[in-house]
């Protein structure tokens, strides 16, 4: 019943959330620790945030990550949206099942395999590893996530909208950009956010496909942690968590708004 909280429910909820968020909360708390020792609390301080800003290596890695994430998310969104449109629209083309299977296979493909196969490809064609290869690799694995998100929206898209646009004189391309795309935009944005976040925190694939001068933040953190965790890393991670959290909140707000609008549209046929 709504409003009546059984004791069992409360306990289950607290335990569940503790399991999920206790490590993260600890990390955030210790990022404000005065002490150099990660596990001993010595008072509140923002000192490590200052130190972090002076760490050239960390900042460079963060900048690389931001550029890779932005670029790969953008390209993956374009490609993923195109794939989703092709998969929903041209229902009867030959080999559609195979094509859709191939688009979605990377969703379940172990990252190690994706990373390794990409590495082999880059080596085979003599592509120097660096910023471009990481970006390409991230496009490859995140575009299928975008395709899934956009396709689920397109399935409920009333195709007569696009037909109406063409009927009124719009070329197929104009009909897509002026009618279809604005209507499915929330899903496209959600897909972009997802791709951006995936790229932001990828370690495995980046490790395989990156080269000198293109160390991403997760790679940097991972290598520093092997030499011992410093509060500085905690500070970096806290900021990352903040960025991801904001992304997730915006995405869910956009989705919620979209749902409300859609339900309102359907409620008054």
């Amino acid at each position, binding site marked *: 019943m709504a409003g009546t909280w059984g004791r069992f429910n409360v306990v289950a909820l607290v335990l569940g959330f503790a399991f999920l968020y206790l490590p993260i909360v600890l990390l955030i708390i210790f990022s404000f620790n005065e002490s150099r020792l990660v596990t001993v609390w010595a008072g509140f301080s923002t000192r490590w945030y200052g130190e972090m800003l002076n760490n050239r290596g960390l900042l460079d890695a963060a900048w690389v990550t931001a550029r890779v994430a932005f670029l790969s998310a953008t390209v993956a969104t374009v490609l993923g949206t195109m794939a989703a449109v092709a998969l929903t629209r041209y229902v009867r083309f030959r080999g559609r099942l195979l094509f859709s299977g191939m688009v979605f296979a990377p969703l379940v493909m172990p990252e190690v395999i994706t990373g390794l196969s990409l590495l082999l490809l880059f080596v085979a064609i003599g592509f120097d590893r660096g910023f471009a290869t990481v970006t390409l690799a991230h496009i490859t694995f995140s575009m299928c996530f975008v395709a899934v998100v956009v396709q689920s929206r397109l399935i409920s898209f009333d195709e*007569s*909208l696009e*037909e109406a646009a063409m*009927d*009124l*004189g719009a070329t197929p391309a*104009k009909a897509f950009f002026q009618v279809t795309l604005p209507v499915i935009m929330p899903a496209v944005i959600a897909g972009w956010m997802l791709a951006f976040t995936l790229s932001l925190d990828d370690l495995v694939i980046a490790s395989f496909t990156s080269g000198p001068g293109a160390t991403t933040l997760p790679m940097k953190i991972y290598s520093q942690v092997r030499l011992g965790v410093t509060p500085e890393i905690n500070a970096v991670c806290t900021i990352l968590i903040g960025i991801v959290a904001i992304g997730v909140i915006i995405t869910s707000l956009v989705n919620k708004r979209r749902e409300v609008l859609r339900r309102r549209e359907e409620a*008054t046929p």
Partner: protein
Amino acid sequence: MKSLGSTRRTFAPWADPDAKPFIRFENVSKRFGDFAAVDNLSLDIYEREFFALLGASGCGKTTLLRMLGGFERPTSGRILLDGQNMLGIPPHRRPVNMMFQSYALFPHMTVEGNIAFGLKQEGMPKAEIAERVQRMLKLVKLESFAKRKPHQLSGGQRQRVALARSLAKRPKVLLLDEPLGALDKKLREETQFELVDLQYELGLTFMVVTHDQEEAMTMADRIAVMDKGQVEQVAPPQEIYEAPASRFVADFVGSINMFEGTLIREAGGPQLKDRSGLAFDIADSGDASPGETAWLAVRPEKVRISRERPEVQNAIDGEVWDIAYFGDMTVYNVRLDDGRVVKASTINSLRRLEDALTWHDRAWISFSADAGVVLTR
């Protein structure tokens, strides 16, 4: 029935052998795999005509409309519009506009934006677009709703926005796919007349798809009754109703009593002898020749019901089996002694009827020799 003005009454280009058809379907077929949605269909539609395609769902009427709109490509055959072959011309270059069954209003645009959409594609100057949009809004009486989004409108208002949007470009032909399907009964009846008036005022050719026979009868100049991808009959509403060409049409439009029998020629004129030995006088034997199996189709309102045997040849007695009271009229189902049921309807012109027929009364049903139509298919 339609408000037939004097100019309207004489509108019958299909009867004029010199008239040039405006839309012409020539042996058009459309197959989806093994299924023939439209099967070798030919049809002529004239300028300024209000033409209705009537049929059950799956009869191919929407496919036919979509082929004219350019959304489906005929498997074979030609479609001519104003003498021009439409084959291979994409929807955005056809001088026809369509009003979709779902209305297909663009949810992210205002009412104004929706109506202006087609005009913007043409590259019409801004001032002209604004003026045209105003005129369309006035036409459909939605001036005060210009800035609203589709989801802020009622069903009837959306229908009118869709209509205004499809009329804004002044198409040569307006295609309407179940235009009133989503409206409730009262609104539908009002809108029927509005559509007819609009079509007449604008002098456009309307081609409307509907499964609702009343809608087709009220609005159309001519109706094509479709079944299994083919046209069963094309005729004005009155002819469709009073002189159906086949049993399918007779049965699909309105309700009907059907007597199967053999045509015989007696001294007094042709008769239809049915399997239980009853012989009905018929005024016109139609296409049927003597000895042939034929069906006599009689509309319930042309069947009289009485307690006493009337002074006509075509009279059978039976038992009142069911009575359906509709207010304005009553339909009696009379069960004959061989188990067949005949429907007879009467107008309730009197508020109270002494000695009204009731369940299980014996009654006579009768009809005149010219009440029915003889059908051979």
